[in-house]
């Protein structure tokens, strides 16, 4: 029997025949994520317990094969792709909310639970899970932890890392370990979050839940120019107001959304801000009034207010359907994720438009303005010869703009393999060496999710010439 067959046999005896996929047509389903790149694993397993995860890891290790954990595959940096083949462990069967401890405001969940389902389970207690990546109806908490996922409401409540209290993990040697942010010693939980599946596989998570605010007010502010909108963002933060969310949509995005979702955006408007304030009703009211007068100071042409859930939902509709709507503009788009200090937003945004003009591509910006987290979506047609290469070149230039402004190469999508080569723009060799020490301590080597985070010369799967992870097929089911 060949080694490949023995591997399958062993995995089957550990997990059951049904939960080990190895036929080419079955594997195809797991060779992609929300990017257009593909990498075919040798086997896919769907465990139902931490013990089975540990067994699968031990078996793969014995065969010298790398292991890549996978949730819903909504990632935008190629994090769930088995770049070097091996075994993909799909966590979607481990999707139980184990416990909601209302008194202590905790949820204990398995990694395959869908983000939004945690809030649904907590809702009867007046609680919810705060980090809300735009893919929250589909993405899993395990993937959120791996990427340290963000979302619109991270402005006030922080990203995933601020809400993970403890983890159960399977280490590279197939051991199950418990780590907690409150236990004595080093904060291994904090280190695990955002490690993109390269250090360990999360099999259980304890999360912090928050009480739902008494009042939430959503304001939609329409501006003639992007510059007015981005100056308003800075002014709100300077005024000592920290909204729950502060999002921006530019003209190109509005055009696409308008055809699709009919939000009533004026055809000649330049940008829309979505500003959400919350807290006690008195506080929310007061903040909303202040925000209104700041918007007026910067020449807002129209302000809409939503206080009940239905009204608020309507105001959010344009933002939420933005990426799906872009499919009407172009067959492909490249989703970028960069961060700049908030005060640099107006100037960097202007430079982004100039760069796109220079390259001859349209760009649609829809992003977390309050955090300085940009998401330029470059629209193009992949079928045009040379277009992909040009778009990648443009993407690199935009990333450079962010770094030069004192920012970072990723705010929430992760480094994956897409941005490995940019790591050296913000980190020195010594900085990266220290990260490598951390990885060495976890003993994972290249056993977990190889080819991610760190600069290497190897490509991923079919992609060998250039990283192009976040070039997504436009259409519904895409998020930013």
């Amino acid at each position, binding site marked *: 029997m060949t080694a490949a067959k023995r591997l399958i046999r062993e995995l089957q005896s550990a997990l059951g025949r049904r939960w080990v996929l190895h036929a080419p047509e079955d594997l195809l389903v797991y060779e992609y994520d929300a990017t257009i790149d593909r990498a075919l694993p040798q086997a896919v397993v769907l465990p139902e317990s931490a013990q089975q995860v540990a067994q699968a890891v031990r078996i793969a290790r014995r065969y010298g094969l790398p292991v890549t954990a996978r949730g819903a595959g909504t990632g935008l940096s190629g994090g769930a792709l088995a770049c070097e083949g091996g075994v993909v462990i799909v966590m979607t069967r481990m999707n139980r909310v184990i416990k909601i401890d209302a008194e202590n405001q905790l949820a204990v969940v398995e990694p395959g639970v869908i983000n939004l389902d945690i809030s649904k389970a907590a809702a009867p207690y007046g609680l919810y899970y705060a980090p809300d990546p735009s893919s929250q109806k589909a993405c899993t908490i395990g993937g959120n932890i791996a990427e340290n996922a963000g979302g619109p409401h991270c402005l006030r409540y*922080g990203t995933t890392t601020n809400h993970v209290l403890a983890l159960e993990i399977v280490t590279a040697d197939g051991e199950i370990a418990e780590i907690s942010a409150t236990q004595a010693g080093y904060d291994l939980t904090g280190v695990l979050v955002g490690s993109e599946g390269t250090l360990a596989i999360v099999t259980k998570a304890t999360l912090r839940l928050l009480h739902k605010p008494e009042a939430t007010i959503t304001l939609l502010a329409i501006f003639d120019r992007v510059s007015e909108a981005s100056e308003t963002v800075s002014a709100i933060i300077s005024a000592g107001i920290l909204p729950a969310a502060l999002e921006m949509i530019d003209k190109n995005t509005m055009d696409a959304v308008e055809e699709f979702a009919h939000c009533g955006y004026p055809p000649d408007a330049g940008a829309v801000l979505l500003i959400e304030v919350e*807290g006690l009703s008195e506080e929310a009211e007061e903040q909303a009034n202040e925000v209104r007068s700041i918007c007026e100071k910067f020449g807002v042409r129209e302000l809409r207010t939503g206080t009940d859930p239905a009204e608020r939902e309507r105001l959010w509709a344009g933002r939420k359907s933005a990426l799906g709507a872009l499919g009407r503009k172009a067959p492909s788009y490249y989703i970028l994720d960069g961060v700049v200090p908030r005060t640099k937003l107006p100037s960097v945004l202007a430079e982004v438009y100039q760069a796109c003009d220079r390259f001859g591509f349209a760009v649609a910006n829809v992003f977390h303005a309050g*955090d300085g987290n940009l998401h330029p979506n470059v629209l193009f047609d992949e079928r045009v010869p040379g277009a992909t290469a040009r778009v990648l070149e443009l993407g690199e230039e935009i990333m450079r703009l962010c770094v030069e402004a004192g920012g970072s190469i990723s705010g929430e999508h992760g480094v994956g393999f897409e941005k490995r080569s940019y790591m050296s723009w913000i980190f020195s060799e010594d*900085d990266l060496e220290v990260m490598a020490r951390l990885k060495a301590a976890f003993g994972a080597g290249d056993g977990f999710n190889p080819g991610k985070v760190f600069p290497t010369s190897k490509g991923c799967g079919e992609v060998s010439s250039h990283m192009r992870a976040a070039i997504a097929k436009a259409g519904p089911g895409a998020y930013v």
Partner: protein
Amino acid sequence: MVKEVSLIGELQSIAGAGLAEEGPACTAFAVDGLTPRAVVRPSTYQGVAEVLRYGNTNRLTVIPWGAGSMMQTGNRPSKYDIALSVAGLTGIVEYEPADLTVTCRAGEPLVALQEQLRRSRQMLPSGPFASREATVGGIVATAGASASRHAYGTPRDFTIGMQVVTADGRITRAGGKVVKNVAGYDLCKLYTGSRGTLGVIVELTFKLAPQPRHEQREALAFDDAATACAFARELERQGMSVKAFTLLNRAATGLPRGGYVLAVDLAGTQAAVNRCWETLSTLAGAAQQLSEAEAERYAGAEAELQTAASVTLECEITVLPSDLPVLIERLGETLEPGIVAYPTIGLARAFWTAGDAEAILTDLTAAFRKIGGSMLVRRCPPSLKSRIDVFGEVPPSFPLMQRLKREFDPNGTLSPGRFVGRL
């Protein structure tokens, strides 16, 4: 003798003649009765790096110092050659209020930083701490948490970037200067609370918070801890704008009547604070509400206990918030220590001025096993310290922590023996 001379000579040539000392100056840098052979106060990051490189190469151990206000906590060092003070590395490096972030050197005292930030109606959401000298580097290195943790979290939540000098003397960066950043491993989390065992923090970037528009302190008396804790949680459930809840027992307040005082720090807009006050008054009843003067008096109670020389044993215990009343009750049975607790966090600090510390600890450890959580002995008699691990039982993931220490500090240069499991 020759070696002694060369050590101080070497340090003086690294940091400058006036910035390295031996002899009597070292007494102030003693840790658990061990006095270093020399103290050095580099004025640059490069200086810190050279001291570490020198120590690491020559197998000399180094303990980093800020203001020293938290140095009593930790296991006895296994060896202690050089006290490396970053107190000279002060000042703000970069502060643009509209970015709501600040970058400053690690030796900057928190109080001084807050003064600067206050001018722009902003703050580092940390503290206050008992010591006015406490440096931001020390607070992050010890993951120092205060009552405002209820609203703002701990240093791990608002530290977004660092410069850290490694044991082998490399100046490295972790994180960045923007509030959202997922590039690479989040090493800031690793260094936060690592108590000078993995590297020396020389610069920090923080996410700031706007100053609350209005603050008001209320205090209420309760007969028992359980009712007080339930009261705090009810305010929390109703979404009240509370910055901090602090529960104090009779021994901590010197209160003649009642058993416990719950201090509630309201913070928000004037209208929100008024509304919170109304809710609190309705829930509590007039008899329980203490006067403004009394409320103010309790504001300093925790700091007083933390700095009181009469305290012989101080423990910090973290449990699930729902277990806090049981814990407090149990603590009260051990010679009634002063107790300061954060009900919504599940954290209690107990201060004993009398009794046999070892007997108390033995008793507590047994009780504590049933409740679960973690316990840190912040202060105890030196004789006891040599026999216990002040961080309690090593956690299940301790082997991983040992590997981390070996990777980051293979020679055991930094604060050897001080951390959990005598890392």
